[in-house]
């Protein structure tokens, strides 16, 4: 089995890591680089808990051998915080709208919603539903997550009200 030195930029910081060819990005982020917000729920690409942004696009990190994204910019939920280290807009909205229960799917939700709002900054309720439909949540029943997407999309950035 071949091993490879790869370079990733994770949440804006350069990381060089040596991985076996088969090492999944989810495991590389979690166990090699300690970005443990990337949760692993099925390793089949179905549940979405492991979703991260690769060069800005949401992807299942459990379906990417780390070596195949050599040179890419990765964003995890830790990287969606505000510049001052506090919660980012989407994270605040999720807390405020009670979109967080057990917290396991939450990081996948955070990055999915961040990516979605970049493409669709003023979503309709139906679009907001679509924004979270790729990540399974077993706790909330989704309504509070949809509310959080809409809240984060408010013109004031969900800062008030």
């Amino acid at each position, binding site marked *: 089995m071949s091993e490879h030195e790869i370079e990733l930029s994770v949440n804006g910081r350069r990381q060089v890591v040596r991985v076996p060819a088969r090492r999944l990005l989810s495991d590389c982020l979690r166990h090699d680089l300690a970005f443990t917000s990337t949760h692993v729920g099925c390793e089949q690409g179905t549940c979405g808990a492991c979703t991260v942004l690769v060069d800005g696009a949401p992807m299942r990190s459990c379906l990417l051998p780390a070596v195949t994204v050599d040179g890419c910019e990765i964003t995890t939920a830790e990287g969606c915080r505000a510049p001052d280290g506090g919660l980012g807009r989407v*994270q605040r909205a999720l807390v405020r709208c009670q979109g967080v229960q*057990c*917290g396991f799917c939450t990081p996948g939700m955070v990055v999915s919603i961040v990516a979605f709002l970049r493409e669709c900054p003023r979503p309709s309720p139906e679009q907001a539903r679509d924004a979270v439909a790729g990540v399974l949540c*077993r706790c909330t029943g*989704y309504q509070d997550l949809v509310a959080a997407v809409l809240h984060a999309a408010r013109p004031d950035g969900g800062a008030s009200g």
Partner: protein
Amino acid sequence: MTAPHVGRPVTGAAAERFAAGTGRFLDDLGSGAAAAAFVRSPHGHARVLRIDLADAERVPGLIAVFTYRDLTGGAREPLPVLIPHPSLHSPRTGLPLADDVVRHVGEPVVMVVAVDRYVAEDVCRLIRVDYEPLPAVIGIPAARRADHLVHPGVAGNVAARMMQENGDARAAVAAAPHRLTLRLGVERSAAMPMECRGVYARPDRDDRSLRVYSATQAAASLRFALAAILDLPADRVEVVAPDVGGGFGVKLVHPWPEEVLVPWAALRLGREVKWVEDRAEHIAAASHERGQQHEVEVGFDGDGQVRGLVVSFWHDTGAYTPYGIIVPLVTSTQLPGPYRLGAYRVEFRSLYTNTAIVTPYRGAGRPQGAFVMERTLDAIARFLGADRAEVRRRNMIRPSEMPYDQGLTFQDGRPLVYDSGDYPALLDTALTRSGWHDFATRREREPDKRLGIGIACYVEGTGMGPYEGARVQVDTGGHVTVTVGLTTQGQGHGTVFAQIAADELGVAPRDVTVVCGDTRRFPYAAGTFASRSAVVGGNAVALAARKVRDKALRVAARALDVPPDELSLADGAVVANDRAIPLATVAVLANPLRYAFDHRTRQATQFAPDADPDQPPLDADDAPGLDATAFFSPIRSTVSAGVHVAVVEIDPDTAEIALRNYVVVHDCGRPINPAVVEGQIRGGVAQGIGGALYERIAYGDDGRLRTGSLADLLLPTAHDVPEITIDHLVTPSPLNPLGVKGVGEGGVVPVMAAIASAVEDAEGIVLDRMPITPAELWELRQKHRG
């Protein structure tokens, strides 16, 4: 006065950690631990002939391989029967690793420990196990036929048989003006938390202790179980539930085979070992629920009032009974719901099958019971041509009849007495909120759509004992820590318990830290299940906080030279008319010190000016600090209730079923945090929708699992769950100081029944089993036409 925090939709600190990505779940711990993986049975039923480890043992990175023969001590023994019951006449449990026979797909046969999970799985692939397949017993009909037995010596595959009766139900049915018989069934589904199970064991040779982290709902009980099985003093075993990514019942079972094997291997190897379950393992090897078949005889009068109900049902308990008969026992006792049944007789048999074990999953047998009761009432309404809601109203227990004794013994071994509630009011509100009476008009307005409306009611016995406890401490910085033995898996315990303590102590919830599920900090607890945390744990928190409050008033009274009854707690201080002492200072004064460690504590040492040389520094029977522990042990369960109304739209051609509206009106007593309550309800309804329309665990007749991944075992997505309208009615429980009732499971209970009722209404075709897929509905249409 500080405004009360109980009753408000406060958000909690845990949510912020999770959103920030700084949760600490099981697999976030123990980065240096060796990884375990298991060779599991691919057969439903087989004899293990030979295990060949030759190829496996050559893999670099392998640390150890264990089969049953390698196990020692208590790890060789069958797993405990956690809840014995006189009716469970033939309990059987598995071994941590199978010895000669495997009885379901996923049963662990060989344990592998390696440097990481990749290598451990490589090794598993190289281990060759020769099996002699045996006939598998799959499904209730096969179990009843008993052509083959799951366990030798368990005749008819019957693990348990139980009957309860209130009145002479058969006679009542026979004497009733009208009678119906129904056959009803519910298929298997499972809790499926997004985080699978996991165990991480850290032996400490120097300290001669063992710390076990587990994604468990029952840390305290797991600790005692492990101490017993591994023959260690309980004092040397610590169990910690870190952040746990959902439980819904499956993580209540303990000890799982892996929870025994991982600590056992860690002790044996003298190193840290961690097992993180993957989804394929979870679907096959963790527990399932719901599979039951019912036969119902009901007698009723021309008004639709039930005179007698006789139910016989068969419960698929899987291969083993570690959790006893709790699920069918709950079904049998909660089936009557909010109704006065005249006479009721229920009998069930728990049947072994060659499938994963069956243990409580959110609702714990109630969804099946509600399905049977509500289908029966719909059948009565259909027979009489009466309004379905009206038939329910006529049977409902009235508020004036509270407390109402159903004449049954509940799962806590106590009489099933409904403590309070106003069921007709719940019904009326649900009908109004859902537009029940205007539905015919709505249908006419949308003639091109096939719409249907359905209703279902439920009660839920919640908050049962034996007890929970809490410790409340105020430190010398004024910070409050609430420690409970309960674990949390996202139900908002941290928020809710903080609100309760905050109100008692006159602080803000933000100033309260809640610690859950760590036996080092609080050793005694039953666990998080049966919608009991807010009721039992919440009241324990309130009682402990009241003790702290009383002590704070006493200490402050002495310091201020004011009678305690002139003092109150507000804004983090003890307040007299014109003076206030910060709670932090009271905490200092409450702990007479020999040694001062900072500027605050200087005033509490022996040479401080306030010290009275004629009194012992600590009063007799007192303990130092603002620190109190209390336990709450309810006399019996308190009963929540609710009514759900579902509106479906069904495609006339493709038979696709979409939920258009969903209304929940419920009563969980006094809501501590309405947002948490609604979150619990919405989540429960979503799981109910899953159980009604998507989720089904299927086995082939050969015992192979056919739904081995989430591509086939479909969980609802955001597109599958509609907006849910929730309304609260409040009848406080008289059984506990806070007046609360449980709400964790109620949301799931009547959903299958409500959706079945709505689909039936839309299609005019009787549904007698759930879940239902579009394909099955289409097949029913063909049969109906033909």
